[in-house]
């Protein structure tokens, strides 16, 4: 059990800056997910914490101690790899006990710990098999078991579910969460899948271009993104971004998307955006906040009609796509309310959930 801290950590490969000066504190027992597109530096950060990569600058602390010069085996961490990295010539039992054997743990103790971990992961029947006799999901469990038996200070997961099919991925996601609830340990989990990040994390760290864009609880990132990148990365389908001009309109503000399409800014938001009146901005609005007209007390001027381009029925909801001033927009509507492609549909934009982004800084106002 330990907290993990990064202080101004930099990683440079030749002349490529993979990680640019990041600082992060992870309290004991927290489940933190590093998420971002490929090449954002999340895996490199994890590998530096593991000791598989050396930090070019900055300090890495585990349990309050600087571990920059401590070899991986002495950092008391366990890591689960994307391709499982099970030793192919060893049985499941041998795979799980290998680390304990190297640490000269007593045989009876090893057996007890492996059996306990196997029980948690429901792989007791597989202990005598070799990795090639296991399915992808079973291999992933064994890889987790190998980490659990060590009883480390920190668990590191490097995209552990990427090699699994969609259904199994959802199952294993729940499994990982269940295991973390049972075996409370500081966990750092790397993924490029924002759904995994949202569902697993106590806190999510969104990374982009080697920097941390935002750190926060999943709900905070969803409702209060700090930048256009975070707003677009978190949430599926992604947030719509529409160029718009913020205009003064008597006491209030008006957001003009097209000559014939303008929405009033809700009075609750007016004070916040007043200083930006007259500027060209970007409106960020999630598909779930563009629906068929529904709900009490909605602003009648936020209703509009659009000709639909594409319709994607998902079962419990339907995605409809249309174009505003050359930009494609996605809306999430009741299946029964969706009209047909090429047909007009009455829609409602719930601007209470709007975000305005400054195109120059890409930051949310």
């Amino acid at each position, binding site marked *: 059990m330990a907290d993990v801290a990064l202080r101004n950590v930099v990683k440079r490969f030749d002349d490529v800056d993979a990680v640019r000066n990041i600082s992060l504190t992870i309290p004991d027992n927290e489940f933190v997910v590093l998420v971002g597109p490929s090449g954002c530096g999340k895996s490199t950060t994890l590998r530096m914490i593991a*000791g598989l990569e050396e930090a070019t600058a900055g300090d890495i602390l585990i349990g309050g101690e600087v571990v920059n010069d401590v070899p991986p*085996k002495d950092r008391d961490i366990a*890591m689960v790899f994307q*391709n499982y*990295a099970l030793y192919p010539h060893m049985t499941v039992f041998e795979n799980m006990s*290998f*680390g304990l054997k*190297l640490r000269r743990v007593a045989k009876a103790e090893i057996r007890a710990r492996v059996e306990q971990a196997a029980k948690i992961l429901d792989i007791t029947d597989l202990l005598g098999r070799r990795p090639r006799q296991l399915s992808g999901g079973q291999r992933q469990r064994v890889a987790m078991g190998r980490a659990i038996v060590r009883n480390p200070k920190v668990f590191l997961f490097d995209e552990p579910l990427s090699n699994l099919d969609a259904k199994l991925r959802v199952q294993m996601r729940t499994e990982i969460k269940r295991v973390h609830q049972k075996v409370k340990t500081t966990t750092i989990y790397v993924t490029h899948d924002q759904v995994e990040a949202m569902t697993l994390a106590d806190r999510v760290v969104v990374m982009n271009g080697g920097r941390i864009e935002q750190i926060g609880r999943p709900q905070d990132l969803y409702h209060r993104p700090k930048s256009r990148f975070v707003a677009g990365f978190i949430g599926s389908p992604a947030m719509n971004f529409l160029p718009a001009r913020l205009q003064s309109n008597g006491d209030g503000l008006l957001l003009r998307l097209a000559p014939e399409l303008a929405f009033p800014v809700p009075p609750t938001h007016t004070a916040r955006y007043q200083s930006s009146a007259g500027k060209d901005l970007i409106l960020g609005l999630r598909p779930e906040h563009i629906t068929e007209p529904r709900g009490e007390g909605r602003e009648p001027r936020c209703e509009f009609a659009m000709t639909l381009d594409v319709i994607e029925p998902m079962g419990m909801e339907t995605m409809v796509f249309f174009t505003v001033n050359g930009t494609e927009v996605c809306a999430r509507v009741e299946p029964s309310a969706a009209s047909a492609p090429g047909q007009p549909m009455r829609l409602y934009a719930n601007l209470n959930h709007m975000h305005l982004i400054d195109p120059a800084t890409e930051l949310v106002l």
Partner: protein
Amino acid sequence: MTAVVAEYPGRSGASLKRSRRWALITSYFFLILFAIFFLTPPYYMIVTSLKSDAEVAHLATNPWIIANGITFEQYRLLFQESDFLIYFKNTVVVTLCVVAITMVVSVLAAFSLSRMRFWGSGILATGIFLTYLIPDTLLFIPLFQIVRGLGLLNSYWSMVLVYPTLTVPFCTWIMIGYFQSIPKELDEAALIDGAGHMQMLLKIFIPVALPGIIAATIFAFTVSWAAFVYPIAFLFSADQQVLTVGTVTSLIKADVYKWGMLMAGALVAAAPPLVVYAFLMDYYIAGLTAGATKG
């Protein structure tokens, strides 16, 4: 329409069967041809080794069959009246030592070259392979100077010294290819599990790369068992001689060829490699191809 659709797969199936049959017939024809071609010399050797000297010398008899009854006289003479057993023992000692030295050196070299990234490791790996491309017929003259300088001329220990110049580069190269095909995450997992470089090599790499190691071992075995140029250049006396050269030099005296014993000796000398191949052939092929495609 439906009739055509129903008929079509049947017709194509028949033609597929026919073309497969022709492919098989052609394969069998050439395979049998090659088998006959390559098995004729061993057959001739067996037949000759089981004849008496009188029958071998008799020009009127058919050389392909044993007319006057099978005799093991040639083998008895070979083992009791010649130095064959000394050559055999020398060859076994040399081969075991060479295989052991080769495997230790090449596994360690391949591990460090493929996994422990250090300055110049890429150039070194290429350099090692290039040394393999220099034929031993060119190397034996400078090596002669070295062996003489070391005072090892006419000692079979000189073979233990010089054969690795042939075996180490190739085996290292095979092992580099094999080690490189092992995913990087495996050593990282071992590193985190607490293994040092030596434990990683002994407990992970060697067991995982066993087919490659067996392939390299067979190669080293074959090279040192069958080498001819170095022993004929460096060894002179019978007590130091190895099989390949010893059999030929002791059983051919000027223009007197002891054909029966020569053939018996060649057969006995060829037996150990045959046994090794028969048991380890699958590993050998698996090892070579894995190194070739993934390396």
